[in-house]
């Protein structure tokens, strides 16, 4: 069953067309990784799903419901930002509960939900601290906790690991994958790191110049669009014949 569906989505900034007709679909519990060179429009695409960017044409549906014109808070999505975007003036617990507070959830219920997620992510001892008193990895976990606590239909990750050092990045990658398997969440994940894409995704979409290269099975994605490869690969089109 298609859970998240994007049809003929276009995004223009003035005369510049950034997304040129994107078609995508993701099953419930799927893990879609958007990968591509910088400036290809992958973060913009994520922004349109979140509702932070308006779209010029096309439609976005979650569970069949069209969400194009809904306010970000009404789309039932949660986003983890590259910079984590934790509110510096609030404690970890307040950060996680802020969304519920804005939606008028009673305090007791908020505290219960925060405690539950904090346990899952082993954040319990950090709840009273402020973001400035946390390490990079801890901030990352709090940002994920803030997303989890909302129990959204879709999680959006915008290059969540690119501010971490190499070792932590691997650890967090494992943690994200585990989280995905345990909660069965539906995730859209933007990165420019192929290894992240390969290890995390159930489905990979390669974006280049605002166009989608055919979404493929992950075993054959690497050369798609010439956008990937380490070191960078040059592709040539050619033909070969098998002669008798």
């Amino acid at each position, binding site marked *: 069953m298609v859970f998240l569906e994007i049809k003929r989505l276009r995004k223009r900034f003035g005369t510049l067309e950034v997304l040129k007709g994107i078609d995508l679909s993701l099953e419930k519990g799927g893990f879609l990784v958007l990968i591509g060179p910088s400036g290809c429009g992958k973060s913009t695409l994520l922004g349109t799903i979140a509702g932070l960017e308006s779209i010029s044409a096309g439609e976005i549906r979650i569970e069949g419901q069209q969400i194009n014109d809904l306010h970000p808070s009404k789309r039932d999505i949660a986003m983890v*930002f590259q*910079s984590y*975007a934790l509110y510096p003036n609030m404690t970890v617990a307040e950060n996680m509960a*802020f*969304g519920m507070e804005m939606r008028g959830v009673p305090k007791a219920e908020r505290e219960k939900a925060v405690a539950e997620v904090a346990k899952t992510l082993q954040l319990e001892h950090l709840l009273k601290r402020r973001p400035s008193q946390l390490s990079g990895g801890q901030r990352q976990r709090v940002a994920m906790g803030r997303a989890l606590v909302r129990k959204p239909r879709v999680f959006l990750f915008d290059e969540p690991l690119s501010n971490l050092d190499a070792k932590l990045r691997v650890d967090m990658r494992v943690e994200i994958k585990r989280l995905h398997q345990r909660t069965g969440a539906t995730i859209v994940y933007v990165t420019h790191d192929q290894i992240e894409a390969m290890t995390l995704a159930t489905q990979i979409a390669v974006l280049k110049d605002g166009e989608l290269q055919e979404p493929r099975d992950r075993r054959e994605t690497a050369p798609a669009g010439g956008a990937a490869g380490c070191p960078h690969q040059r592709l040539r089109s050619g033909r070969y014949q098998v002669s008798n």
Partner: protein
Amino acid sequence: MSAVDLSAVPPRRMRTSQSVITRVVIYGLLIFFAMIYLVPLIVMVMTSLKPLDEVTGGNMFALPKSPSFASWIRAWGEASIGVSDTAGISGYFMNSIKMVVPAVLISTLLGALNGYVLTKWRFPGHKLVFGMMLFACFIPFQSVIIPMAVILGLLGRIGNQLIDATGVSFGFGNPTVNLVLCHVVYGLGFTTLFFRNYYEAFPTELVKAAMIDGADFFQIFRRVLLPNSMPIIIVTVIYQFTNIWNDFLFGSTFAAGDQSPMTVALNNLVNTSTGVVEYNVNMAAAIIAAAPTLFVYVVAGRYFVRGLMAGAVKG
């Protein structure tokens, strides 16, 4: 062996003696210039503590023989100000407080709101609007006096009509309210500039996160932006407080008699042309007039430099 030779004493001793000389020169200069700045204040304080015959008959730099606060008390509650009936500067001091507190609060808050909109809720033409607000910073006081007088005259007429109709003026035509309006309008360019530059460097992702969390325009402003704006709020408050408190031109033009702010009253006290000039009372009044700005600097000054530097360097 060579290590011992290298760390042998002579070159190092030379360096230390050199640094001692440098220190002496640096501190000497600092103390010298600090003294130059402090002399007027010291003379003011000493003069205010002397009786009048000691001031007129003695040396300006002589210490008071029997320090007393008599002239401070006179300045505060008894001295005659110009042709007004009110005695002392206490009433005018309160006038200034009543003007400066709302003017600072309103202009700071509006500046913050402007800065928020100009950086995080951009609209077509936001650059032009900001450019024009910036332009407001370069308009001299003198050139707005006549237009301002016309507007305040209009507000005064509205006030009179309101009094005729309802018996209450709702603040229209009240000199203090007028001065608050002048200073808010005039200060808006500066406060907007401060906050816009601060919020320009403020991470937009925080605003986006709050949007996803369901906070509306004012909730984002109040819960996310303002609590993280302490350095620039302090800069703006100090700047506005000093400017508005020290303003003489608006105060002397748009308020008269008992309604005048402190600066005007001080002028009327000092420039009186009848009787003996009571230098000790004048000095005491001048110190009282300068005290609030001094107080604000002492309390919040260390945030001032920090706030001015904020956003200049990332991190």
